[in-house]
């Protein structure tokens, strides 16, 4: 019933906490309700301004007194999964109106170098970190394994970055808006072979929030409702050196569970907002979410198929690669974009006739997956 983003990119005039609360205010205004009507609050952890009881701190800061209050400790799949925690709380009567607000200030509050070093602590302290892997190294291991198994090319990975940037060029809010070519990606600095700089997502400030309630109540509010039709999770490991597979992910189980709940399949999806912390992730997600057979993801992204006007527009706001990536909140911008697309608010980047959107988040190192299917009608 409400969805909004703050300004994103480099936002030095707002602290991390202020970004959470500004996103919340904008989403409440979009929903047409006051903060006193919120009785459930969900936030994610912040690195720039951490609190042990983060959601409680935001409630205190806003002076709201929810009867349901929870903070998501980690990003990507976990933060996206907060959708169904909120839905469950509403369905079981724990609360009626949940505000999910997530933000961070990784550039202005933390600094780019500190953010990158902090992220690398995802590696196991004894069995991974002594080898010095930055986050791109973990995903480079995945990219090379996929390349070896299926012949996926650097040009195909680059096509993902090109599509996201093309969409960001049509999004005035995006952090990086200058169109790029496949050659630009391939000639950008090598970070961790085979991943170039432009295969890697951004480091950003920003926040996004949504307001959820039951389908019945949603009809009474200002905006036409967007429905959460199905959602599912899958979990395979935490550390990449413990992964069962480098080339197949638990996005498959997450997607199957979400499709089953929605009673829909990949062929029903008009647009997809896929977690794109690195380009090879999108290729594997397209396979595991059933948009193409295993191993065909590289060929699928060729020829503009995932661009606006293509068979399956992906990351119509520009994604983590070009719109913004403030860390834990990353998946939230996929939700707010899906809502805008399903309301038909996206102007030059609108997917014509968008009725069903799939959002996918992954966290850790291809560890934790959540898929969610939204529609502008109940099916």
């Amino acid at each position: 019933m409400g969805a909004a983003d703050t300004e994103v990119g480099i936002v030095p005039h707002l602290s991390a906490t202020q970004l959470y609360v500004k996103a919340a205010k904008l989403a409440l205004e979009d929903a047409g309700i006051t903060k006193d009507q919120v009785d459930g609050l969900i936030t994610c952890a912040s690195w720039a301004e951490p609190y042990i009881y983060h959601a409680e701190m935001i409630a205190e800061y806003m002076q709201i007194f929810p009867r349901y209050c929870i903070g998501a400790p980690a990003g990507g799949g976990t933060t996206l999964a907060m959708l169904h925690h909120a839905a469950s709380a509403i369905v079981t009567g724990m609360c009626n109106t949940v505000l999910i607000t997530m933000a961070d200030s990784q550039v202005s509050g933390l600094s780019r170098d500190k953010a990158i070093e902090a992220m690398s602590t995802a590696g196991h302290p004894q069995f991974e970190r002594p080898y010095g892997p930055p986050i791109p190294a973990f995903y480079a291991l995945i990219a090379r394994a996929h390349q070896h198994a299926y012949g996926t090319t650097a040009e195909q990975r680059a096509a993902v970055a090109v599509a996201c940037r093309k969409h960001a060029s049509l999004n005035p809010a995006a952090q990086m808006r200058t169109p790029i070519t496949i050659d630009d990606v391939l000639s950008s600095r090598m970070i961790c072979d085979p991943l170039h700089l432009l295969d890697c997502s951004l480091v950003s400030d920003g926040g996004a929030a949504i307001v959820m309630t039951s389908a019945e109540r949603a009809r009474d509010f200002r905006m036409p409702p967007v429905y959460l039709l199905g959602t599912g999770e899958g979990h395979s490991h935490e550390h990449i050196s413990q992964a069962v597979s480098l080339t197949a992910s638990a996005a498959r189980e997450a997607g199957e569970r979400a499709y089953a709940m929605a009673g829909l399949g990949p062929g029903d999806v008009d647009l997809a907002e896929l977690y794109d912390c690195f380009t090879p992730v999108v290729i594997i997600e397209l396979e595991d979410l059933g948009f193409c057979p295993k191993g065909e993801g590289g060929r699928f992204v060729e020829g503009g198929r995932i661009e606006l006007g293509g068979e399956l527009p992906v990351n119509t706001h520009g994604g983590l690669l070009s719109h913004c990536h403030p860390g834990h909140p990353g998946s939230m911008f996929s939700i707010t974009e899906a809502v805008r697309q399903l309301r038909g608010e996206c102007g030059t980047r609108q997917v014509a006739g968008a009725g069903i959107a799939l959002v996918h988040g992954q966290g850790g190192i291809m560890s934790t997956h959540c898929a969610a299917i939204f529609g502008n009608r109940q099916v």
Partner: protein
Amino acid sequence: MTAHIRKPLPAPTLETRPYWDGCKLHELRIQRCAACGHFQFFPRIYCTRCFGDRVEWITASGRATVLSFTIVRRPVSAAFADDVPYVVALVSMEEGPTMMTSITGCAPEQVRIGMPVAVTFEDWTEDISIPKFRPA
């Protein structure tokens, strides 16, 4: 040994102490379940296959093959700045488990998926030696 002093130094725990004691002796130790024969790494209190409690430490052969690898060009922190470019790899041990490591003893560009490798140890402090792999 002082070259590695600023790197993230492993802090052995109750559970991982036998592994690091082995590394100090230049032995690569993993666990084997005495009940079902399953080999496992990281170390755990129970067997991940039969969930039995008869896990024992054994010395692995140290032979492995490269499962995937990357050449790191931008170091994770200043402590690794002198090492770039360096190889971060996943190797599949002869016994079955996978581990993260570095490949040394050859140019980074010579590393290939499927390449046979053997363990070698880098002494970081008097107590901590880090297992790495070189072409076999």
